[in-house]
């Protein structure tokens, strides 16, 4: 195997995207994604069983397409990497079974990879983020803010292959999930993120003051005596507050000012997320913050993150959207790092772990 510049095939199936990517070292060769998103629209959220069924049928065609896009043969691949968690258990199982099949069929090493760390690894694929002059490395003192329908986390990345720490995370709903639920409340389409982002542009973000979860002193504490949830998030109370607010307008027989509600809700989510991310950076010596996850597409999140990181001298990195959403290339990118660092491959007997902690970069 070429340990200096390995060709890695990455597989992702933790939620509703079936992704297969091919990466050589830090060079992106293919990033093929098949999404079952449309099948979830009428339910207003991802239905795990529907996602799992879709993964099973999408996997081989997606693999075939990725190999064709990259112009490589399965035999050329040096190692296989697969998301083993965190994610939906039944969905993970499909990608993991397929990845094990590829490994045993070809005799190539298999790496069971942490999905959240892979979101950070994707930064390696963009020259604007990891320029060749930096010896294909991520910036030092790196942090990551991951926001999607499945997760909301702040990470500190000392070494992408060896040392990643969870600084904060949601204690209930993911931010993207809150967007979906509020969108449904307002009669908007699924997925809620883009719908609310669009509508919010016509609304007043200060019209309604919604609660900012886990921001009171008893949760925050101080730098020296941090509270129990200093960098954590909670969005379930906010969702309830929006519901009460909408019901209030209806009970009074008033028209619901949907644009104002959307804008005010969005501001409540993104205000907390960006404020806590910047706080975590400042207090942990993080000088570069990478944004990842599907909610990175939100225009207000990008705007707020840009303003607030700039104000505190933190460099903000935003990979292109096709690399922010769940995909196989990010899994391959992290796999390549593990191979280059000489990390041992996973045993074929590993099981997917739906709550795999970020401290576990591979199994």
């Amino acid at each position, binding site marked *: 195997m070429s340990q200096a510049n390995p060709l890695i095939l990455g597989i992702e199936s933790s939620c509703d995207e079936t992704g297969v990517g091919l990466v050589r070292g830090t060079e992106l060769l293919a990033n093929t994604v098949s999404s079952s998103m449309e099948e979830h629209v*009428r*339910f*207003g959220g991802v*239905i795990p*069983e*529907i996602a*799992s*069924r879709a*993964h*099973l049928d999408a*996997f*081989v065609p997606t*693999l*075939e397409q990725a190999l064709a896009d990259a112009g490589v043969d*399965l035999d050329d691949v040096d190692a296989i990497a697969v998301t083993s968690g965190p994610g939906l*258990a*039944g969905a993970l*199982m*499909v990608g*993991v*079974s*397929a990845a*094990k*099949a*590829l*490994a*045993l*069929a*070809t*005799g190539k090493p298999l790496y069971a990879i942490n999905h959240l760390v892979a979101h950070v690894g994707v930064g390696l694929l963009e020259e604007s983020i990891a320029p060749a002059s930096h010896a294909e490395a991520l910036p030092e003192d790196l942090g990551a803010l991951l926001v999607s329908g499945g997760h909301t986390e702040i990470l500190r990345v000392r070494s992408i292959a060896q040392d990643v720490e969870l600084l904060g995370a949601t204690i209930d709903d993911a931010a993207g999930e809150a967007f979906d639920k509020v969108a*449904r*409340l307002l009669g908007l389409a699924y997925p809620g993120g883009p719908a609310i982002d669009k509508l919010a542009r016509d609304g007043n973000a200060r019209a309604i003051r919604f609660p900012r979860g886990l921001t009171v002193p008893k949760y925050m504490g101080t730098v020296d005596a941090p509270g129990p949830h200093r960098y954590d998030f909670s969005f379930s109370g906010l969702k309830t507050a929006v519901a009460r607010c*909408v*019901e*209030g307008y*209806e*009970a009074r*027989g008033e028209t619901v000012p949907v644009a104002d509600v959307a804008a005010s809700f969005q501001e409540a989510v993104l205000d907390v997320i960006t404020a806590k991310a910047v706080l975590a950076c400042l207090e942990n010596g993080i000088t570069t913050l990478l944004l990842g996850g599907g909610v990175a597409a939100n225009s207000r999140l990008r705007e707020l993150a840009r303003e607030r990181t700039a104000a505190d001298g933190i460099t903000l990195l935003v990979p292109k959207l096709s690399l922010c959403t769940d995909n196989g290339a990010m899994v391959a990118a992290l796999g390549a790092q593990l191979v280059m660092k000489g990390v041992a491959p996973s045993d*074929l*007997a*590993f*099981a*997917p772990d739906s709550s795999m902690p970020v401290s576990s970069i591979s199994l």
Partner: protein
Amino acid sequence: MRILTIDTSAVASAALLSFDADDPAAPTLVEAEFATADTRSHAEVLAPGVLSLFADPVTEGPALDAIVVGVGPGPFTGLRSGIAMARTLAFAWKVPLHGLMSLEALAWDVLSGLRSGTCQDAGTGSGPASAVPRIVGGHDAGAGLPPSAGGDFVVATDARRNEVYWARYSAVGELLEGPVVGAAAAIQGIPVHGAGAGLYARELAANGCAVDPATAGLQPTARSLGIMAARKIQRGQTVGDTAPLYLRESDAKVPGPRKRAL
């Protein structure tokens, strides 16, 4: 013909079998097999189990004549792990791929076991893979007829949620009804075999169904599925595709309109 079979409709299992595809009376050789006893560890054990069947899967795999996978019915997540494995192996090795209804494996166990009186041996193999070749089949050489179970019978597995997956077969192993999912109480006045029979033995007995303790723990295995597949191939019958037989919709419900606060 040399085939790899995989079934994860209940336990996780795989087998390597060879047979003369042109001779319906020729016996099937089980070269190696693996099966777990439990129904919940597919993720961990399936790949090592398949690996253990081969001396060198990288060279032997592409030389296989076919892969046959059990397409259920069975609990969804486990079932998919076997189908995902089989589809991906077939792609990587460029080997023809077929699917067979998993309860066929139990039908074979019943047909062969009742004939030879060795139901216990008919497929609950557990523990590590056995590399000892065993010749099975070879029933009534020359006649080309399957063994007889004496009359119609039903095979059943656990469908959880107080239901069973079941199918009805003729005495010569012809599928007459099913597979279906439902309460065991719906099965009446017929011998019932398989783990599904063991789970609901009392209810079935109350409905006039004979439950044989010798078969009441049987689960579908890749070994027996493979023998049924070999029989079909030897008779020139088509083996199906690998679309899973879920038999149940996903539990997803389209949310109703939100109640307005008026």
